[in-house]
């Protein structure tokens, strides 16, 4: 678990720095682009093994297709009870409850790594 998360951290840091480097070459860098780069870099670091990261990556590739998929599957009885969590975890609206909890745990781990690495990069660049 610790080795996996450190691999993810390294992969994320590499991808995110690469994106930042690209953004830096462009004329305008805004916060929305940096944020987008951060979430995309994390999903790409995790790869296609996880449903939430697949959801993030496919959302980027095809937004309209994803929206249709959501409409079709949105009829679970648990939906209203766990609606908030479903909206917070990427792809959560189409998961069964067990997978939602499982993906949530992984998503939280990755988000904490993401925040930590972003903080480290910020500190490094501010000094």
């Amino acid at each position: 678990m610790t080795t996996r998360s450190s691999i993810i951290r390294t992969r994320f840091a590499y991808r995110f720095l690469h994106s930042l480097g690209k953004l830096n070459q462009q004329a305008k860098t805004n916060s929305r682009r940096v944020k987008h780069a951060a979430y995309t870099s994390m999903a790409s670091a995790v790869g296609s093994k996880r449903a939430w990261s697949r959801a993030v990556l496919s959302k980027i590739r095809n937004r309209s297709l994803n929206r249709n998929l959501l409409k079709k599957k949105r009829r679970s009885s648990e939906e209203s009870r766990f609606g908030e969590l479903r909206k917070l975890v990427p792809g959560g609206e189409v998961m069964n409850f067990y997978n939602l909890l499982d993906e949530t745990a992984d998503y939280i781990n990755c988000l904490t790594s993401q925040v930590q690495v972003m903080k480290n990069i910020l500190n490094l660049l501010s000094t």
Partner: protein
Amino acid sequence: MSSRRSRSSRHSGGSRISEDQINDLVNKLQQLLPELRNRSSDKVSASRVLQDTCNYIKSLHREVDDLSDRLSELLESSDTTQAALIRSLLMQ
């Protein structure tokens, strides 16, 4: 008993998932939450864990927002030194 276990497949959407499996995951989630991590699991309700999970994810999202703001400001104001630093980080 074994037949019951085999029925509760974790992958297919329609199959039954046992309460134990759900409880295990709720406990796992609880361990990830800074505020509930040190509490004994039988003292915290599942709905409390789920509510705190939502709050925690939202606070992490806010942190990413804030860090993105600060990073973009930094890049915006960056001179060649910082661009060079990013490049040097990528070379490793």
